């Protein structure tokens, strides 16, 4: 049974409930108490997660939940990312009518991501999906603007559709295997008809793609990134992916090789990165551009998933890349959050002269997303490329490399004006009110993005352990 396995999750859940309840009694301007509660809960959860309770990796709840290295990494990443999101939203959310609810929803959605990452059973995976998605719809719609409502609608409808396909897939797979636990999937499915296996697998993977924001379920990502509040946009482009990709890795690791899963994931990866990059080319809205860029990033992140179990590098590479990606992406969104009046790329004109530190953070984050060393994403890309090649998909590595070059183009379209290089005439938007939380978060996240790269040896050592099943 070992309920202690779930202590971090419990802490997050309690934090969500407490934040929500406290909000009911707090005056509008003093909702920071709810924020503190949420932060405290996350900190406690992180503390528990970081100290392996009861000694190291183990399974819990009759093997339905794997509290192994990957889960620990996902927990810490989700918690860290959520903390950063709350931090960077400190200015935007303060005093909002729904501030406390936002914290509760963020925690709940994060909890869903953690549960997905740790799920060692199809049913847990499905429930984790629900837990992650439902608060997400609300978060997207929280802004209550027309665009936010539209984005919420699209997020919801896509989420519902892919939730259904996921349940369909779970039904098929569990029917074939006669059980839902991954340990049994691995043994039972090997002898089953590949056609049915393929159908079920694709259906489940499709659901995971929704959470990850990859093709073919990527449609909501740019819309939500553009229309939701910056805080939420940062969250939904980061945290769900962590859960979904670790879950995908776990699942594909468990599925038998009678179906060409690497090919499926490779095609989805290639499609995601290519589509995301190309669609980002001509975007003019910074957040929409970031939204598309996350679609392409998922493509790279799917590389190790595609070779799950076929290369020793794959799992640590995935986790390392996720860590680097989370920090880097959040840094970019934090910069956006710090400059709410600048929505279009052109409005970033001359950022370097009026806000040099923010410009620096933007530089680190965008070049980091490209994969410029020594930022973490570089090591992530390097190791995922190596893993994909090692796992028998060298062509995918080449596609990813070409895509990386293409991606440079649109990131530079943003950096160019920011560093005052295109036209001297542009009347750079005068910086509005200071947003200290977001600025600090941007710097911290950018520093983290660099540190993950420089300290990648440490990170790698921490995440280099096999999955439990």
């Amino acid at each position: 049974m070992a309920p202690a396995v779930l202590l971090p999750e419990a802490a997050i859940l309690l934090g969500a409930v407490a934040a929500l309840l406290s909000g009911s009694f707090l005056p509008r301007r003093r909702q920071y108490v709810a924020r503190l509660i949420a932060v405290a809960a996350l900190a406690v959860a992180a503390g528990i997660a970081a100290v392996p309770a009861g000694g190291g990796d183990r399974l819990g709840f009759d093997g339905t939940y794997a509290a192994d290295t990957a889960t620990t990494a996902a927990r810490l990443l989700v918690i860290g990312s959520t903390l950063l999101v709350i931090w960077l939203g400190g200015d935007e959310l303060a005093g909002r009518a729904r501030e406390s609810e936002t914290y509760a929803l963020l925690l709940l959605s994060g909890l869903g991501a953690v549960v997905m990452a740790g799920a060692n059973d199809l049913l847990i995976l499905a429930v984790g999906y629900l837990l992650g998605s439902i608060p997400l719809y609300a978060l997207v719609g929280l802004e209550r603007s027309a665009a936010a409502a539209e984005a919420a609608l699209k997020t919801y409808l896509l989420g519902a559709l892919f939730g259904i396909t996921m349940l369909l897939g779970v039904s098929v797979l569990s029917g074939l295997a006669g059980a839902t636990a991954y340990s049994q999937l691995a043994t039972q499915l090997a002898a089953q008809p590949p056609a049915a296996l393929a159908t079920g697998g694709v259906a489940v993977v499709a659901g995971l793609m929704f959470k990850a924001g990859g093709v073919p379920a990527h449609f909501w990502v740019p819309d939500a990134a553009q229309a939701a509040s910056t805080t939420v946009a940062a969250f939904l482009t980061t945290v769900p992916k962590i859960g979904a990709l670790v879950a995908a890795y776990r699942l594909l690791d468990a599925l038998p090789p009678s179906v060409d899963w690497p090919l499926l994931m490779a095609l989805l990866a290639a499609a995601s990165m290519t589509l995301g990059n190309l669609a980002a080319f001509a975007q003019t809205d910074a957040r929409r551009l970031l939204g598309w860029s996350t679609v392409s990033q998922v493509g790279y992140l799917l590389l190790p998933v595609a070779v799950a179990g076929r290369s020793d590098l794959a799992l640590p590479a995935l986790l390392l890349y996720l860590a680097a990606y989370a920090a880097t992406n959040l840094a970019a969104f934090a910069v956006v959050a710090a400059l709410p009046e600048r929505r279009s790329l052109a409005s970033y004109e001359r950022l370097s002269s009026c806000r040099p530190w923010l410009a620096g953070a933007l530089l680190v984050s965008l070049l980091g997303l490209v994969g410029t060393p020594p930022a973490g994403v570089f090591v992530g890309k390097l190791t995922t490329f190596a893993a994909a090649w090692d796992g028998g998909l060298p062509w995918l590595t080449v596609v990813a490399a070409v895509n990386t070059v293409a991606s440079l183009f649109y990131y530079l379209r943003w950096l160019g004006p920011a560093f005052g290089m295109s036209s001297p005439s542009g009347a750079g938007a005068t910086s509005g009110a200071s947003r200290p939380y977001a600025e600090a978060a941007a710097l911290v996240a950018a520093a983290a993005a660099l540190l993950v790269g420089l300290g990648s040896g440490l990170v790698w050592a921490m995440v280099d352990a096999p999955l439990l099943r």
Partner: protein
Amino acid sequence: MSAVFVDVAFWVLSVAAVGFGALVFRVDSMARATYALAVSFVAVGLALLLLGLEYVGIVTVLMMVMEMAIMAVFMVMYMGMNPALMPMNMVHSPRWAAGVAATTFVGLAALALLVPWPARRGAPPVDVTTALGNAIMGSKMLVMLTVSPVLFATLVAAVVLASARGRYDRFGDDLSRRPADDPAPGGVNR
């Protein structure tokens, strides 16, 4: 239950489920569509009973009937429509939709018919519902443990999305305004 009865019942229910399902998109008002959907669900719920899933079948029937009732109410309340009277033909590109649906059906049907499904493993427990209960409290406890935060999240999320006016609109920024500032006064002791 004799096999013949089961077969007949199954086919009747199947035809009802699919037929009423199709009817959902043929009728010209949302209310009727809701009723058709409810019938379809009830048919499937009953079919589950045929498959030996007593508890789950009943739950399905009950849940879906309730849900459809809510849906009808919802439409009247929020959408401001008189469901019975609004003629409705609001579709786009039905050909595409039909094409995709047909392709999906062909694919799934081919899967259902052509795949050599494995033989049955194990026998149904004597008391299906008890087995379910044991599973929920035992090996699959975590599933249900996780469903509860899902429900909690749904509650919060739905309220946050659906209600335009929060507590600060009603009670003021420091929650001290009494009585609440509601457009339509109500509540206990009012």
